[in-house]
């Protein structure tokens, strides 16, 4: 809020150092995605050569767009389910009482540590039993289920900081729990919901194991497969993979830039005296 004079110099410096650490690999990805496969290794890793979009054409030709559609559907569904379910559960945990609330919290904690690899075969059985194999819901439900524990942990942490008095005011205004959940808890935990949403979206967007095991036909293929389309038994077309990476990443990044406003919190400012 104040002038340049009050710039946090050490903070800014450290901030820029980290920026370099973050940016360098990303920069490398981008410029490499604009190279030809032949000779990309021996090219100068820092200076971009003559850029070519050939790899991008290749990626798109491979069916990228249909993968994109499936991924979008799965991601949208997962995010919706996670946001709604996890918010409801966190609300019940934070605002609820007794052993059920604390018990479910502990149960969710258990979920933080289930190694997917170990559980994948049983999950396959479950999905199969529910006749979901090779459908998009086969990706949506397990992905959502495995995102819920972390989401609950994050939301619980955030929800508890919504001032109790606001809930009280709403009660007095005649709101039911359900209304308080959606009219108060939800809007005031927007930053956390965004964080959780991003998390769930990335699980869905980048998740590989579920799509691999739980689907098979090309109609249910999702984006992460695009990465492997350029990976053969004996080598990888790195520039093409990176082109696919860049292309996959762009939509999510765009969404983040749009949603980031929600992070500009301080959402409870002004509620009291």
């Amino acid at each position, binding site marked *: 809020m104040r002038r340049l004079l009050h710039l946090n110099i050490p903070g800014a410096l450290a901030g820029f150092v980290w920026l370099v650490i973050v940016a360098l690999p990303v920069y490398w990805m981008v410029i490499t995605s604009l190279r030809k496969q032949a000779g990309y290794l021996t090219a100068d890793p820092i200076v971009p050569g003559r850029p070519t979009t050939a790899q991008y054409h290749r990626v798109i030709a491979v069916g990228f767009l249909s993968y994109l559609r499936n991924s979008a559907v799965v991601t949208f569904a997962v995010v919706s389910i996670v946001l709604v379910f996890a918010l409801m559960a966190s609300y019940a945990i934070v605002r609820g009482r007794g052993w059920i609330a604390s018990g479910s919290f502990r149960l969710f904690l258990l979920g933080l540590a289930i190694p997917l690899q170990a559980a994948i075969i049983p999950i396959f059985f479950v999905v199969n039993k529910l006749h979901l194999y090779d459908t998009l819901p086969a990706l949506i439900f397990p992905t959502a289920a495995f995102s819920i524990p972390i989401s609950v942990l994050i939301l619980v942490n955030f929800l508890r900081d919504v*001032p109790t*008095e*606001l809930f*009280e*005011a*709403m*009660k*007095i*205004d*005649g*709101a*039911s729990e359900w*209304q308080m959940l959606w*009219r*108060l808890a939800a*809007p*005031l935990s927007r930053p956390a919901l965004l964080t959780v949403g991003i998390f769930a979206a990335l699980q869905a967007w980048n998740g590989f194991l579920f799509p691999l095991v739980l689907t098979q036909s090309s109609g249910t293929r999702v984006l992460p497969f695009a990465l492997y389309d350029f990976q053969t038994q004996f080598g990888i077309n790195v520039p093409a993979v990176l082109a696919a990476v860049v292309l996959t990443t762009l939509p999510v990044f765009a969404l983040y830039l749009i949603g980031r406003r929600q992070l500009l919190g*301080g*959402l*409870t*400012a*002004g*509620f*009291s*005296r």
Partner: protein
Amino acid sequence: MAGIRYSGLTKTFEGGTLAVDQLDLEIEDGELMVVVGPSGSGKTTVLRMTAGLEEISAGEILIGDRVVNDVPPKERNIAMVFQNYALYPHMSVFDNMAFGLKLHGYKKQEVRDRVEQTAQMLGVADLARRKPAQLSGGQRQRVAMGRAIVREPAAFLMDEPLSNLDAKLRVEMRTYIAILHRKLSTTTVYVTHDQTEAMTLGDRVAVMRDGRLEQVDAPATLYAKPANLFVAGFMGSPAMNIVHSRLISEGGSIFAELGPTRLLLPPSFLKGRRQLEQYAGRELILGIRPEDIEDAALAPKANGEASLDVQVTLAEPMGSEVIVHFPVGAAPVAGTPSVAAATDSKDRQELAQLIAEDPTRSTTMVARLNPRTTARTGKPARLTVDVSRLYFFDPTSEVAIC
């Protein structure tokens, strides 16, 4: 609509603070009950229990004929102004006020009309689109007020709803509340620390202290006939002057000692005060309200027996009156926490001296004089005491003597 009844209401917080202690009080249907009491005396806690926001440790609350101890807030149909507002930070001023109405199923148009009227009445109509964070303290308070009064609940609970408003606006708001109450006759519990509000607004005033009810009465009664020293000292601003005194019976007349001065109690005063006579020759506590001391030159009828010659230590011209402080050679009544209490330390010792030269033998008294008085700081002055309006209390039980 319904009355509210507390019986044996008690609240002990985790950690053991006893905030409300065996409160028995009945607020009639349609009554506006003002609750006053020192900071921390449990006023807010009572309101919160009434609203159903705080669990009841013991006792009962009845709204109408129903014990509501276990009824959730939403079903009690009350509106509340929170002491610290609790505005919805993510909603505009309009939405803050409209929210309760919407929940109660009012039509859109009706919601708009009501909110707009109320907002206008409260002078926040121009701010309708703003979020609470963009409001000043007083504006927030008015929105909090608006959120409550826009509804038509079974009862209003108002926790110092005007504390952050300027005097002028406060008078307006107070009038508005009075009118509203006269019109709607909604049972209302109104917590305030403003003397004027307490005296003008309520049908009755309940005085609380340390979680207990000290007295509940019509405002004028409370002022004229405080049940005990605490209520006497608490109601009225500046507070009643309270000193140790003695009743002296001499030549058929009865005098009250005010330091070296003797105040003759007129027969009209003594009439019907049987108890008082029993104190003849004994120690008691004398109370004189500041407005009952006047500049001798300006008093309607000068009363020789009760005149005091004093040295004014501070004269504060207030415009409509002059507040003068002066010491009298009477022992003060201890017990109420006072500024002097903390002045024992080296660093701020001098402060203590500024307050009372010799705390055990002299008491600073306060008088409200007519603005035309000539009393000035550091000058002597002659004052008269209206001996027909003295107060006496038992020194041990502190109960009023009548």
